[in-house]
């Protein structure tokens, strides 16, 4: 999970990520209820060998277009690409999730997807296709024994990591 000094040093390495520059952690902190965290991880493993994806719903801070960071509900969705290298949220699942969130007084605040063999860091494809500057982009890496979940804002091609907190 994000936040420990080792992950900050890893986050600071440019290496193959020359597209983006890290300037430290930004708000909002992603706050994940344990039940929703387990939904995300379960869906990612269920999706193997392909990448899995789903949508995050929550609330937006009044007067802004920035989420308050708490994920109220996770909507697992189908990966229409059915690929181990790319994902796209099935268009029918997308509209269903939007309506389900609206019915609960929520809105979509982000998306999660898995990296089956690479680290929990936005790929060049992730950066290129990030269309929502206010969203949280959550990536789950399954490459090691334990899943690694990290959260990012992606704006104007720039990656900024956000802290992550698990709530009971």
């Amino acid at each position, binding site marked *: 999970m994000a936040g420990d000094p080792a992950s900050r040093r890893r986050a600071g390495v440019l290496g193959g990520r020359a597209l983006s520059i890290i300037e430290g952690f930004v708000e909002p902190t992603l706050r994940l209820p344990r039940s929703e965290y387990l939904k995300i991880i379960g869906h990612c493993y269920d999706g193997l060998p392909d*990448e899995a*994806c789903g*949508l995050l719903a929550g609330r937006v801070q009044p007067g802004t*277009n920035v989420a308050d960071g708490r994920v109220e509900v996770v909507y697992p969705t189908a990966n229409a*690409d059915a690929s181990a*290298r*790319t*994902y*796209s*949220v099935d*268009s*029918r699942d*997308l*509209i*269903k999730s*939007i*309506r389900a969130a609206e019915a609960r007084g929520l809105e979509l605040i982000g*998306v999660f*997807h898995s990296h089956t063999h690479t680290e929990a860091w*936005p*790929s060049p*494809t*992730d950066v290129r*296709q*990030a*269309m*929502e*500057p*206010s969203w949280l*982009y959550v990536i789950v890496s399954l490459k090691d024994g334990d899943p690694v979940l990290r959260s990012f804002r992606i704006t104007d091609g720039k990656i900024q990591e956000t802290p992550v907190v698990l709530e009971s």
Partner: protein
Amino acid sequence: MPVEVRLPTILRAHVGGAPSVTVEGSTVGELFNGLVSQYPGLKGQLITETGDLHKFVNVYRNDDDIRYTGRLDTPVEENDVVSIIPAVAGG
């Protein structure tokens, strides 16, 4: 007939910031042609050079993805809402 077209955040700058615009047409294709002629900044964002729906946008007539209802030939009626929602994708 006039139909409301809802736009995603990333396209609103091209229509002066409005979250939706009302356009005339009896199919989704006609609505989009009307949109582009009114707001030239939208050219190429919705429809490709070959006249197909861009794969990076999802378009819904009410809650139905138009890819399943006739694509740009999908007929629209007066109280329909056409929503343009960017594809959520990556790799």
